[in-house]
């Protein structure tokens, strides 16, 4: 009986390994909804992407676009009222949406790990650090004494200089950066094939952020894990990720090689995001801060196929569905791509 993370209702058919893919994580047309007062409100609308071993993939978007939901879905952690309404999630070929509770538990022990946004809250406040790290190893089957040795080693691996001292402290006695290193140590205990990081540096100072990101990059190179990184900070994504997906209102509106997307964005939303970054050296008298007018749509509103159409400066009639069209010939999302309408200087 799992506690409070009642998995989404799934059918009991055994997972069938898809051996043809080499992707560590493959999300296929994933749709997810929150059930609020009996009504299903869509959060993810057909998300598809994949991450290969050794690769790091960034999901970026504004708060509320569904990136965290996707990250948690990748480890089959759904809120109590979350329901997968379509698609599947393949990790090393196995569809985790169809796993039983016990299979999910084994999956989390051996194959996937997570690093969280608020490391202080992610650690038990009334237990010392030591037992919390040791636990990550005993769950793998190690004996208590072996696990204690492994725990100290894990703390050294995340560049904590005094593992014994830190093990004897409580979470509140550590700085944010140290706490996050501990969380990373716990996450890497099982040498996971998939490492999901949900805004791991959002709460940290800039210098600490840099060192934590360096650490993650180094560890990824060592373990060849597939990394899924969630962030709303475009700079972090730029430095850390090989590929990036831009999410808006539960859909990936643009995807590709990180460098390409940032230097040559195709979708108006991506462009809007990049343009809204304040430029160094430019004063406000020289240039107004560019923003994307309007707000992210509320979770659960039904949206036309192109989810960005209401805020898109390039939208025209063809972008919106009309009554004459059948639903199957819906307008192509992101139709107003910059290159197509490049009547610009």
């Amino acid at each position, binding site marked *: *009986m*799992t*506690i*409070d*993370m009642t998995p989404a209702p799934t059918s009991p058919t055994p997972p069938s390994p898809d051996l043809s893919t080499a992707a560590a994580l493959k999300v296929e047309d994933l749709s997810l909804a929150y059930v609020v007062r009996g009504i299903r409100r869509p959060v993810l609308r057909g998300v598809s992407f994949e991450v290969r071993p050794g690769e790091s993939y960034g999901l970026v978007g504004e708060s509320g676009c569904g990136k965290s939901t996707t990250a948690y879905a990748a*480890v089959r*952690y759904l809120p*109590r009222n979350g329901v997968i309404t379509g698609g599947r999630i393949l990790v090393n070929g196995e569809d985790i949406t169809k796993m039983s509770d016990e299979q999910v*538990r*084994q999956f*989390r*022990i*051996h194959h996937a*790990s*997570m690093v*969280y946004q*608020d490391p202080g*809250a*992610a*650690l*038990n*406040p*009334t*237990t010392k650090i030591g037992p919390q790290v040791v*636990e*990550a190893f005993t*769950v793998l089957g190690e004996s208590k004494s072996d696990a204690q040795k492994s725990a100290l080693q894990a703390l050294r691996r995340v560049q904590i200089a005094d593992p014994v001292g830190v093990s004897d402290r*409580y979470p*509140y*006695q550590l700085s944010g950066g140290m706490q996050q290193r501990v*969380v990373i140590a*716990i996450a890497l205990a099982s040498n996971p094939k998939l490492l999901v990081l949900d805004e791991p540096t959002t709460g940290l100072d800039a210098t600490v952020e840099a060192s934590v990101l360096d650490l993650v990059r180094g560890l990824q190179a060592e373990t060849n894990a597939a990394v899924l990184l969630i962030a709303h900070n475009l700079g972090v994504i730029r430095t850390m990720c090989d590929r990036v997906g831009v999410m808006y209102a539960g859909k990936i509106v643009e995807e590709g090689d990180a460098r390409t997307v940032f230097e040559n964005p195709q979708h108006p939303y991506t462009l809007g995001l990049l343009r809204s970054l304040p430029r160094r050296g430019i004063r406000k008298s020289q240039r107004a801060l560019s923003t994307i007018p309007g707000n992210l749509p509320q979770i659960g509103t039904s949206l036309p196929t192109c989810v960005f159409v209401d805020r898109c400066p390039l939208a025209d009639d063809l972008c919106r569905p009309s009554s004459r069209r059948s639903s199957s010939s819906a307008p192509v999302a992101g139709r107003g791509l910059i290159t197509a309408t490049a009547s610009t200087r």
Partner: protein
Amino acid sequence: MTRYIGRRLMLSLVTLWLLVTIVFVIANVLPNDIGRTILGPFAPQESVDQLNERLGTNRPILVQYASSILGIVTLDFGDSYVTGQPVWPQLFEAMGRSVKLAGLALLITIPLAVTAGLYAARRRDRLSDRAIVLVGVTSSSIPEFVTGTILVVVVGVQLGLLPVLATPPPDADIPTTIRYLLMPATAMAIVYFGYIARMTRAGTIDVLQSDYARTAAMKGLTAGQTMRRHVLRNALIPTVAVIAVQVGYLFGGIIAVEKIFNYNGMGQTMLMAAQRKDIPMLTAGAIVIGIVYMVATLIADLTIAWMNPRIRLDTEH
């Protein structure tokens, strides 16, 4: 931690002083004429004046106040208006009997309620959870004298299982005492079960939704392991607080239960004091119970503080 203890004790003393003052105001300042209150509207004025003289109610209020405070510090709560004897010894003895009854009630209700609360939290919104919440809401709504009545009628009279008059024979051994006290204790336990169970449930649900419970799940711990190692010690903190608060209500409800079961504890004493307008006895009871409540909350706060490493170690500041 020592700093916290010190501060907390200081606050307790202030609250205690306020408590005593409030009771004093009610007992001595509100009524205009204590002698009249005791003897009633038909007594002759001279008797009233004589009584007031004897009781010292004609002294200036501040003098009376000072002597009250001094007396309390030395455990001298004055003399009973009825017996003329010091109030404290009689009250103390009656308290002893009530403590036995209250203790049994807590012994019954706490393990049951906490277990029910934990169980309900883990099965949130399922049928068993809703049933427990419903039972909790219902049981905490029924006044003790109502459950006592029902128990007497059903268990005591109709089924004849347990004695109806709760006072055990003197020198009774523990099993016999429990047998006599079981019905009144159960009547009280039923009322407190609801509140404690619901608070435990709420506290556990909070912890289950916390980030560190999520971390435990993501580590791959089983439900049982998560509960034992991470949830319990954090979830039971509000429960400790609630139990302390219930101690205060306990001694209020005990009055009705002692009346029904004719048990000569503090409740009966208070009741008789009320009927005979024995104000010193009543004020002594109010103050003593207030102190018991404050001690209970103090212990609870200190326990909670101790469980929080930040306060316990006090390395900051």
